[in-house]
């Protein structure tokens, strides 16, 4: 009888340990997510020179965004600076290397753009262009 009690106690302890471990792993993943795309999101106007083509490509690989939906993409890349439409294709445009004055974009200045193309709500293409 005593032995049974001990086994039950051990089972309960193990169960509690598994739950705790799973919570910790989830928390670690969340922290990692913040670390990787934080530079992209924090440079929301593109004038801090934190955004670049390499970072965008790394984020697409890391978060498995190839052929992802627009919603999932925005979850990791943040709100786009502009949205364009070309026929049935939706283009999310993110500014890079802009010139800012008092935390707002100097609209007439040259910029670079990272553009992500969505067809049938799936990421189908991307390009990086500069003015």
């Amino acid at each position, binding site marked *: 009888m005593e032995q049974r009690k001990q086994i039950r106690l051990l089972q309960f302890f193990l169960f509690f340990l598994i739950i705790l471990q799973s919570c910790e792993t989830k928390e670690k993943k969340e922290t990692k997510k913040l670390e990787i795309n934080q530079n992209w999101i924090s440079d929301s106007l593109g004038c801090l*020179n934190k955004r*670049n*083509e390499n970072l965008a490509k790394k984020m697409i690989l890391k978060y498995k965004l190839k052929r992802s939906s627009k919603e999932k993409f925005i979850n990791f890349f943040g709100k786009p600076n502009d949205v*364009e439409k*070309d026929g049935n*294709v939706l*283009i999310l445009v993110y500014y890079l*290397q802009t*010139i800012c004055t008092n935390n707002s974009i*100097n609209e*007439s*200045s*040259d*910029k*670079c753009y990272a*553009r992500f*193309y969505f*067809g049938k709500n799936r990421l*189908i*293409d991307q*390009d*990086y*262009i*500069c*003015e």
Partner: protein
Amino acid sequence: MQDGGNAGFLSTQDDLAGSTTASHENGHGLVYRNESNTVDTAHTISGQDEKTAPSIMTARGAKVNSKWSDKSGKMNPNTRRVNNADVNNMLRNVRFTKSGKGQIGRTTNTIYTENGAKKTN
């Protein structure tokens, strides 16, 4: 222009005949990289004094010396010139073979639509 690619599009709203825009765009295709900055940028900061004209890769809207600026105080694109640093910045990542051949940029064969969007099919 693609950053380091052979495709791009020109807007007819730009002063294409009178400005240095076309040459500037060509510079992007030739993988221009500013080596004076700690960050990797496709544009440069130059034309800060009256002796040196802004580099061809200076961004429109950049603040430059009054000699090179228009009435609004922003760079006048007609004053940009290609200088030695520009050529170095375009060639710095190019690896040449023993026979002297090197590849600058990449061929993407992209076609852009009249709206400036990449043709996706």
